[in-house]
């Protein structure tokens, strides 16, 4: 082994004024920014709730049981994330890789659910152009879906790194920072699930305005 190869593994301890790693602090600050981003969209949804003039209305399209399943899948991906970080920190390469892959797969399943849901809604006649519910629903959940997509690509990249040996216990911080992002996206979904699905599930059309007959 050459001298260069030895120093490659020696990561100098970063000294910062607060003791927090720079990139970790950056991610926390960014998440603060993202809170405002989602917050404004969620506020828009709440202000516009029940303001649709034409159908389909939430109670006619929302499917709570199926979305509960997809929510569960996303929550489990956070568990996988925790385990992945644990094993990568422990230096157990194979288990670490496997659990990162689990995050990727669970995230992808969630995206699949969303894709099917969007198609189903479109089939029922609800698009972003249909009414104010469609507008606020699709843009908010779509933005969240975009966040999940970015996370899945990021995790896939990290799974590849881990398998490759480039992600090790000494730079597990790379995974930890991605994990912060992933957990945040997960938490946002809990809010969205509550606000759009659980609270609005019974927002029925006004009498005589039913558009879909089951």
């Amino acid at each position, binding site marked *: 082994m050459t001298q260069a*190869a030895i120093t490659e593994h020696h990561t100098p301890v970063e000294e910062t004024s607060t003791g927090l790693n720079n990139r970790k602090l*950056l991610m926390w*600050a960014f998440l*603060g920014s993202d809170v405002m981003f989602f917050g404004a969209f969620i506020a828009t949804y709440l*202000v516009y709730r029940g303001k649709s003039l034409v159908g389909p209305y939430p109670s006619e399209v929302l499917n709570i049981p199926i979305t509960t399943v997809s929510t569960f899948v996303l929550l489990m991906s956070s568990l996988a994330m925790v385990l992945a970080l644990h094993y990568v920190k422990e230096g157990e390469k194979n288990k670490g890789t496997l659990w990162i892959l689990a995050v990727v797969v669970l995230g992808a399943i969630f995206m699949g659910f969303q894709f099917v849901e969007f198609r189903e809604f479109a089939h029922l006649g609800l698009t972003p152009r249909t009414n104010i519910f469609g507008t606020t629903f699709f*843009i908010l959940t779509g933005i969240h879906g975009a966040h999940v997509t970015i996370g899945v690509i990021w995790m896939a990249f990290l799974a590849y790194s881990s398998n490759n040996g480039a992600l090790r216990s000494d730079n597990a911080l790379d995974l930890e920072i991605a994990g912060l992002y992933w957990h945040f996206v997960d938490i946002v979904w809990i809010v969205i699930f509550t606000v759009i699905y659980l609270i609005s599930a019974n927002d029925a059309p006004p009498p005589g305005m039913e558009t879909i007959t089951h």
Partner: protein
Amino acid sequence: MTTNALTFPRFFPRPQSETGIWGWIGTVDHKRIGTLYGITSFLWFLIAGVEALLIRVQLSSAENTFIGPEFYNQLFTMHGTTMVFLVIMPLSAAFFNWLIPLQIGARDVAFPRLNALSYWVFLFGSLIMNAGWLTGDAPNGGWFGYAPNSGVTFNPGLGMTYWVVGLNILGVASIAAGLNFIVTIMNMRAPGMSMFKMPVFTWMTLITSVLLVLAMPILAVAGIQLQTDRVYGTHFFNSLAGGDPVMWQHIFWLFGHPEVYILILPAMGIVSEVLPTFSRKPLFGYPFVVFAGIVIGFMGWFVWSHHMFTVGLGPAANTAFAMSTMLIAVPTGVKIFNWIGTLWRGNIQLNTAMLFSISFIAMFTIGGLSGVMHASPPTDSQQQDTYFVVAHFHYVLVGGALLGIFSGIYFWWPKFTGWFLNEKLGIANWALMMIGFNLQFGPQHWLGMDGMPRRIYTYAENMGWEGSNLAASIGGFILGLGILLFIINMIYSRMNKKVAPADPWDGRTLEWSTSSPPPVHDFDEVPQVKYRDDFWFKKHPETISEYYHNEHDLEIEEAAPAPSHDAEEHGDDHGGHGGIHLPDKSYYPFILGVGIAIFGIGFLTNTYVIAAGVPIFIWGMLGWSMEPVNDPT
């Protein structure tokens, strides 16, 4: 390199050149990026100034036909948008970039490549925003872009699309810069510099950065909603489908009011550096100034509806926002009294920088007082949409932010360039600006009280508004003459090359402890900080006891930990700077910036163009993430 490390194919070697266009494109040096910000935003300042002068020519007489209503709408929209987003904000960013690492004793910002990305994204965003001038389709819906007037029904054509796409791209730049400076200020301070030993400008930068990071996403949401309404036919602001135009006002002003403090806090920071230096005593009530800044940054979130008193939100909302608006005048007043307290019994040197700072206090106070008048809903109902409001915000933005920035330019120019600006030209520049500014905006108070509405391209002869408008127009040209003198002064400084020493003003903060201009690595040795205004007390140790009366205070200061992590400690002695690690140059910020710009162009032209941006974006991302900050040597 170990064999299992990920590598990314390099299509070109790392930039090495220090000079020429490639040297600038590959730079990650905070000082050069600051210079880029400064030059770019000054050019936009001149363009927005010309737009203002055209407006003033048109309004100089009644029923003028110099320009028509269409062009007039574009002019006032782009004047406002440019001055806010492409002048005051990036000029502040130029100061952040130049000064923050120097003031906290760091060698660069925390994320040098992200810093370069911020600049490139800002540049491309500003170009996209202004591209409408070339197609004759410039934005025309006001800098506030009120829906549904900015929607596609009432505003077909690309104009407001340029605006909204440009703003969203600029937002990316602002958020990235804000994040960078938060981390830099929190994490990169020199040993011993605790938060309350930081210079006030650094404090105001930190607060501004927090506001940027939290406020810009809200503007992004407004922009996305307007954009999807315009392009994809959604109904966010379409009242025919149940949407609510007032929603736009809420979201925009929820961003817009913190934005006001984003514009003014950096100038307050500059003034808080200039006044103590030229009064030769420390800032009066440092903790009060800092906490007033924090309180302003916090309360700025609870006042937005004072922009909407005439919307009809009802007495409860109007009362609440009237009270919060009046309250926010308190911390602002605290600052003004502290600045006056700093001057009090000081050994005052009246040079150009100081004149600008003192004028800042006076003019900003006038603008602040007319602001308190608007805080009352009944009064505001009379003033809404009149020239009184125009006078108010020009007094805080020109009389406040811009005078502060000019003060900063005269103050730090020797540090930035190594040469002095000419004092005589400087004082003439200041005098012309002050005369012109007051002549232009002073009479607008009366015009507004007399009922002259904003955003009208002309007015009738029998309204009695001609005299004041003519005065305002003359004032505008005098102000422009002042700016011209400043340009001459810059050129004169460049030609004359009157060399400035490292510490020309007997300064107080760390940036004066290094050479003018600073070396590329900023400090030969990382400074060790013991006191607030540490550099001053190192130069004048006899004054320490004057300001640290309490023995107990002194003991605490002595006991302050001063961990040393000099460059020498980790010194592997490579990089050619005597063991100092500097981040290597990189092209990826530029490439990623180009990718983001192509996304923006895609939104304006054809969705397929967005697809063309994707590979460049991914190339930039991958190349960036796999390029080590420093190549092993």
